[in-house]
Structures are given as structure tokens and as C-alpha cells.
């Protein structure tokens, strides 16, 4: 009774267990063979490619041999057969048999050039004959003379020059170290010896997963592919593989997105960086000749004598004015690139109106030339404080030259100064086309030239306002665009003494 119970219990427990085990093993085997089928499908393409490559190589050699001369390193001996009789090379020379016939013994009783095609078909017009001897393999290429079908021309190729070129034709497969460790693709010669190999796995006696024979003249040669079980994968691995594939796919999509994003961003950043570097270098190079132009302009003026031709004076004035403008442009660029700029201003005790007047002075001739009237409304003749005149000059220079460039039609630029309890200000306003409300902040960004008719035809680096504001801020002041009815109006405010809040 008890024994029966135990037996029943065991049967109930073991039967499903055994069934599960059997099923597991079955599915594992199925998995193995399906993995092999899959691997075969995956690999047949690449291996076929290699075989095609060898085919193309052979074709190239054939064309070369038809045109070759005795100097060709691929050529060992030329031979010529007429009406089935070898006429060249001569079989006996100086009483001794030509070694060519030793090497190719066994070829000549076959009339190989008449064989090949099926019965009744035309005799082939070209082909290869290969053989294996103790000294290594041999290859002969022959073709029927296109002008005389009784003549067969042939070349015994230099075996190792030929095979060396074959070896160099075989491409690298660029397997990684781990890939190379669990697979081997071998090109075996007709003697079963490895001629070339990819991958380092030693298959031992394992059968090849795939073998692909080569065409003539490599009769008996074949590509053989071996994969280690780890490379084949088993059924449990297949699930992992599936998951890995899905994960890989997802990661791929995400990665691609990220890549595109980073690429685009990186490209534009890189482009901007290049632009700055280039402009920077060019600008720096321009400084030296410019200094010389200015210097020699002054020397020339000094050399003119007391009563120069008024036209010459005019010309000189233009040269100096334009050189000054160029100088400011270069300074702007270099300031932007933070190359030539001290990090902080170097303030000196000064009167505000005098600082502004000095800064405006170089612009007066240029403005006058363009028909712009500079209206100066001084209101800070008593405001004494400490400012960096170079910085103020650069800020005002940028504002005034903007007016000069974009607002010449307004005929008037007004520069007003004033003082408060703890600071000073200067306002530069023109009567030009003004700045659209939406662009109020954008104009201070580097390279932000407004892309409309306003800037069309006007030149500039697109750096001036940004630099001006930056300088103002680092002088502990501010530069803002004021809302106006007409034209543009910029207000620069600076503290009396830097170090105190404006």
C-alpha cells in the first residue's frame, strides 16, 4: 500500500519533470540546429563576397596575362601550341630537356585545350589548368589565338608571385578581438592546407559550418567557416539575444536621436568657434599694417609743408578717418575674442563731458562726410569721477558708428550727457529707422546683425553692441536701448567711481 503510494507520488512528480527535461533538451537541440541554420544564412553572403573577390582577381590576372611580356613578374614561361603540338618552348635545348616540361609533365597528353565543354559543344576558347606537385602547386592559363584557332597560347604563371597577389587581395574582415576568438574563416588549398585565415579559433575536428568551393583555377580550394558554440549561441541564449536585440534596437534609436542632436549642436558650435578663431587671427594680423598706415599718414602730413594743396589734405583726412574706423573694427573683434582686453577697466580721474567729447572727436569728420550732424548737448561739465577713457571711447565709438552706418538718412545724431547723484550718463540717439521692438535684446548678441533691409548693404561685424554692453557692465554700468518714437536711442550709465554700485 505504502509502496504504491510512493510509486504514484514518484510517477506524478517524475513524469512531468522528465517530460519537461525532454522538452527542454529537444528545444535546446532545435535551438542549436536553428542557430546553425541562422548562422549559415548570415554568413553565406560575406563568404560569397570573398569568393567573388577571388573571381575578380582571377579575371584581372587573365587580362593581364593576355597582354603580358616576359618581364612581367607573374610570367614564368610562355608556351605556344599549334595543331596540338607544343612548338614553344623547344622541348630540348642544347641536348637537355627544358625544365618547363618537367614542371608541366602530365599536362601534355591531355590536350586540355580541347576539353571542357559538354559533348558536341564548341571547344572552349580559354581556361586554366592547375596541378599539384611536390614543389608546390602550378598554374597554367591558356587561350585560343583569336586570329588562328589552330594556335593555343599559354602562360605558366609564377606560382608564388601569383599566390602572393591572391593573398594580398583577400581583405581584412576587421573582427574584434572577442569575435576573432570564437570563429575562424579559412581558405584551404587543394592539398587541404590553410592558405589564408581570419579569426583565431581552432576548430580541431569540428565540421565546418559552411564550405564554399572556389572556381577554376583554384580547383579543390575552398572557404571554410567555423564558429565556436559560444558564437552560435544556444536556445537560452536565443531569448537573451532577442532581448538584447530589442534593447539594442531601442538603444540604437535613442542613440541615433542623441547623435543627430549632438552632431547638429556640435557642428554649429564648432562653426561659430572656427569663425571666431579665423576672424581673430586675421584681425590680429591687420593691426601691424594699420599702425604703419596711420604712422606714415602722419609723417606724410608733416612732410607736406606750410601750404599744402587742399586736395592732398582732404585725401589725407580720408585716409586717417578710414584707418581709424578700421582700427576700431579690429579692436572690437579682438575685444570680443578676449585677446587684447584687460579684464577690468583702468579708471583715471576725469570730467565726464571731457571724456565724451574726446571720444566723439575722431568721428566728427566721418559723420560730416555722410551728411550727419553731430549735435552735442553737454550737461555734465562739472561731473568729476573716475572712468577708463579707452573703454568709454570704445563704447561710444560703437554707438556712433552704428548710427553712422544705419541711420545716415536721419541726418542727425544727438549726444546728450548728464550726471546724477552717484553716476553719469550719456545718450546717443539718432533719427534713423529704429530697431523693431522684438529685436531689442537680440541686437546685443554676438553676430546678431538684423537680417532685414535695415542691415542690407551695411557692413559690420555684428559684434559692436555686444561688446559695448559687456564693457559697460564690467565698468559697473549699463547700456540699454531706450524706447523711442523715432530712431534708436542708447543710454549708457556709469557710476562716478567704479567700485560703488551705479
Amino acid at each position, binding site marked *: 500500500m505504502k509502496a504504491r503510494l510512493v510509486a504514484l507520488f514518484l510517477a506524478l512528480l517524475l513524469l512531468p519533470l522528465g517530460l519537461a527535461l525532454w522538452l527542454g533538451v529537444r528545444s535546446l537541440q532545435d535551438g542549436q540546429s536553428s542557430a546553425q541554420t541562422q548562422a549559415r544564412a548570415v554568413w553565406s553572403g560575406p563568404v560569397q563576397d570573398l569568393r567573388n573577390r577571388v573571381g575578380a582577381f582571377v579575371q584581372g590576372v587573365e587580362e593581364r596575362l593576355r597582354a603580358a611580356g616576359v*618581364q612581367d613578374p607573374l610570367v614564368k614561361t610562355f608556351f605556344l601550341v599549334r595543331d596540338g603540338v607544343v612548338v614553344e618552348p623547344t622541348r630540348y635545348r642544347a641536348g637537355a630537356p627544358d625544365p618547363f616540361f618537367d614542371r608541366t609533365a602530365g599536362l601534355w597528353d591531355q590536350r586540355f585545350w580541347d576539353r571542357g565543354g559538354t559533348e558536341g559543344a564548341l571547344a572552349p576558347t580559354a581556361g586554366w589548368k592547375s596541378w599539384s606537385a611536390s614543389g608546390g602547386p602550378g598554374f597554367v592559363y591558356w587561350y585560343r589565338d583569336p586570329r588562328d584557332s589552330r594556335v593555343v597560347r599559354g602562360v605558366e604563371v609564377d606560382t*608564388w*608571385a601569383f599566390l*602572393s*597577389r591572391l593573398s594580398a587581395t*583577400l581583405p581584412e574582415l576587421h573582427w574584434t578581438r572577442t569575435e576573432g576568438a570564437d570563429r575562424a574563416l579559412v581558405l584551404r588549398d587543394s592539398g587541404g592546407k590553410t592558405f*589564408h585565415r581570419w579569426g*583565431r579559433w581552432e576548430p580541431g575536428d569540428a565540421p565546418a559550418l559552411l564550405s564554399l568551393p572556389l572556381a577554376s583555377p583554384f580547383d579543390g580550394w575552398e572557404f571554410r567557416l567555423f564558429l565556436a558554440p559560444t558564437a552560435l549561441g544556444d536556445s537560452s541564449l536565443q531569448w537573451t539575444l532577442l532581448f538584447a536585440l530589442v534593447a539594442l534596437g531601442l538603444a540604437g534609436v535613442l542613440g541615433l536621436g542623441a547623435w543627430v542632436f549632438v552632431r547638429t549642436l556640435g557642428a554649429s558650435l564648432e562653426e561659430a568657434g572656427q569663425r571666431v578663431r579665423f576672424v581673430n587671427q586675421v584681425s590680429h594680423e591687420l593691426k601691424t599694417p594699420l599702425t604703419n598706415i596711420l604712422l606714415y599718414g602722419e609723417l606724410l602730413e608733416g612732410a607736406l609743408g606750410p601750404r599744402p594743396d587742399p586736395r592732398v589734405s582732404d585725401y589725407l583726412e580720408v585716409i586717417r578717418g578710414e584707418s581709424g574706423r578700421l582700427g576700431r573694427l579690429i579692436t572690437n573683434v579682438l575685444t570680443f575674442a578676449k585677446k587684447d582686453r584687460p579684464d577690468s577697466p583702468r579708471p583715471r580721474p576725469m570730467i565726464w563731458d571731457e571724456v565724451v567729447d574726446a571720444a566723439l572727436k575722431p568721428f566728427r569728420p566721418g559723420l560730416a562726410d555722410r551728411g550727419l550732424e553731430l549735435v552735442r548737448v553737454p550737461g555734465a561739465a562739472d561731473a568729476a569721477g573716475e572712468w577708463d577713457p579707452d573703454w568709454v571711447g570704445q563704447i561710444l565709438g560703437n554707438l556712433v558708428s552704428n548710427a553712422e552706418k544705419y541711420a545716415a538718412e536721419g541726418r542727425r545724431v544727438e549726444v546728450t550727457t548728464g550726471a546724477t547723484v552717484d553716476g553719469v550718463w550719456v545718450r546717443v540717439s539718432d533719427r534713423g529707422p529704429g530697431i523693431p521692438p522684438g529685436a531689442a535684446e537680440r541686437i546685443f548678441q554676438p553676430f546678431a546683425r538684423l537680417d532685414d533691409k535695415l542691415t542690407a548693404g551695411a557692413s559690420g561685424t555684428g559684434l559692436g553692441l555686444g561688446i559695448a554692453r559687456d564693457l559697460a557692465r564690467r565698468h559697473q554700468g549699463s547700456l540699454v536701448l531706450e524706447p523711442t518714437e523715432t530712431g534708436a536711442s542708447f543710454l549708457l550709465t556709469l557710476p562716478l567711481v567704479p567700485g560703488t554700485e551705479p
Partner: protein
Amino acid sequence: MKKILMTAALGLAGLSLWAAEITLTADLVSPVLKAGEKQTTWLKVGLKGFEWAAGNRTPAALNVALVLDRSGSMEGQKLDRAKEAAKMAVRRLSDRDILSIVTFESEVQVLLPATRVTDKKSILALIDGIESDGSTALFGGVSRGAAEVRKFLTRNGVNRIILLSDGMANVGPDSPSALGDLGSGLRREGISVSTIGLGLDYNEDLMTRLAQTSDGNHAFVQEPRDLARIFDLEFDDALAVVARDLKLTLDFQGGSMPLRILNRPGEVTGRSVSLDLAQLASGQEKYFLFEVEVPSLASGKTVDLVSVRTSYGNLATGKPGLQTVKASVSGSSDPQAVKRSMRPDVAEAVGIQQSVEAGQRALDLKDKGDAEAARKVLEESAADLSALGRALPAPSAAVQAAAEKANEDASAIADDTKDYNQLRKSMKADQFSSQNQQRY
């Protein structure tokens, strides 16, 4: 006046350039032979490269492929030293030279496709990245190196493959005869292969054969630390090449007949012999020794023996060069006159080459297991050399050294406690060097 001086100076400069040609010599070991009997004697035909300014490389550009074994056995010090040596070599090249680097193990990789040596930094970094693994696909490596050199094959420079390997070729063709044939094919294209065997596991027959048939150099480097020095010497040699594609033709006259060439490949059929050399370096003398049968001569009679002609590419001028020379022989019944006519340099060359021949015979005997016979051959060779040394009018350091070497080898070859593998590699390398008048 100034103009005349200038013209004269130019003329002189032109002259010195024109004068930079190789020297061709043809000398019998004794140009006076005993009258009245048919006899055999030795003829030495020498080719000497003109001296190029010491320390200066010749104008010839290099097109060189470094083919480096990176199989598993190279791991550690061997590979480290090989990389160092390769890097040192790269530093010696200039931007008109072309370099490619091929590495091989079970597979073959082109590490650096043939390129002008302009960016040394990147090349050095590539070399640093070489890692060891796998077996030795030597044939594939050399084949790929050849393909790279072929891309920039030049007639006015030096096309060379420098092969470094420490092991038996075990992937792909591996017989000395296959590699030898590969070498002759490459030589026909103007490419030489210098082979450097590292350690004690490479196949010296294969490596010397490949170097021999392609007219390259060969070296046995037992210790990895010597690699840099050997690479340096190899590049010294490549950078000193002054002539290439030397074709040599000999026409024997007056009933004389060449019997064989000593220790250099080349067949003798009939009275006309054609030979060639791939290259000749600055100051280097390469020579061929012919055993010649001279018919019976009447006393006091002089006959033309041979006229020799060589054509070659002069790498200094970039033009073809041509030199000719003749040798004659006279009969004498005065034995003293025969003795006096002896040319010590020819006698020395014959002695050295005969000792090389004896050394090869000794290795064959030892390979067959007859160590005693091998020892005897070497001892006899040492005795012959000593006798030659005494017969020479002035002591010869080369003969002296060869005699000592033969004695050393004699005792080593019969000594079972000594490593024959090591001895065989070193003897093979020495024989190769003597036989080809290698510069190092």
C-alpha cells in the same frame, strides 16, 4: 673673368657628379700562371659603390614596408623592443620616404597603408597600439607588405620589405622553397626583403632563403634588446644605397671557361654569364668568385681572359651607368713570377668564401646527425684559413677572424651540451652575411 670662374666651378661640380660611378674590377688570384698546362684558377669580379658623404643619406628615397610579427609568442619584451625599434626607424625617415606597416599573426593587417612619412606622431602612436595574439601568417604578411610597396614602386629609390619574425610560419605557405620563389619574384619587381629572425624559434632556412633570393639582408637577433641596433643598421644600409638593378655580363675568351660561381646563386652555361644584384651601398664591395678553367699558355704569352660589363641605375645622378673592365692572363715558366703575381685581396676572398662553403657543408652533416664529420670539416677549414694567412704578404684580420670562428664552431658543433639550434642560426646568419658581403 668672373663668368669664366663660374663656368669652371660648374664644370668641376659636374665632373665630380659625373665621377660618382661604381667601380668595377676583375682580377685573377694570380694573373701569371704556370706555362704549359691547363689549369683552374679563381677570378674575382668586384663591384664597389662610390662613397657618399659619410653621415649623409643618399638621394635615393625609401619605399619601405615594415612587416612585423605580432603573434602570441612575441608577447612581452620581444614586442616591446620591436615596437621601439620600429619607432626609432620611423624617426629616421623623412617626408620624401614612403612607409607602410603590416602586422601579422593568424591574420594579416595593414596597420599603415603606404604613405609619405609626414605625420610621424600618428605613425608612432599606431606602432604603440600593436598588441600580440595568434599564430604566424608569414607568407600573408610579406605578400601584403609587397602589395603596399608596389603602390609606390620606384626605379630611382629603394624598395624594401623589412620582415621581423620570431616564429615558424604556421598559417599559409611555409616552405623555404615557396618563400624563396616569392623572394625571386619580388626581386624581379625591384623589391628586396630583409629578414630579421628574433629569438630561437624562427625557421632560419626560410628566412635566409627569402633574403637570399630577393637580395636583401638577414640578421639573427637572439636578444630582443639588440633589435633597435639591427634596425638601425638595416636602415643605415637602405639609406646608403647608391646603385640598383646592377646587371653583370661576363664574356670569357681565349678558350677559358667558367666552371662555377662560389656561394652566389647563378648558373653557368657556356662562356657567357649573366648575373645581377639588386643594390649596392656607399663604399660597399660586393663580389662574385668564378672558378675558371684556363687552357695551357705559352711562357711569356698574354691572352685576354674575360671582358666584364655592368649596367646599373645610379641613384646619385638618377641616370643609368655603365662600366666595363677586362682581365688578361699570362703564362710563365718561372714559379717565382707566378707566386709574386698573387693578388692578396682575391686570395683572401676565395679563402673566406671557401670557409663559408665548408661551414654550410658542416651544417648539412650535423643536420644528418654526423657531428664528428661536421667538426672535422670545420677544423680543416680553420687549418686552410691559417695556412692562407701565413701565405699572404701581410696579415689579414678577416682571415684571422674566420679561422678563429671556424675553430670555435668546430668545438661547438660536436659539443652535445651546446644548443645546436642557437649555433645553427648564428652560423647561418654569418654565412649569409659573408656570402653576400652584407654591410652588417
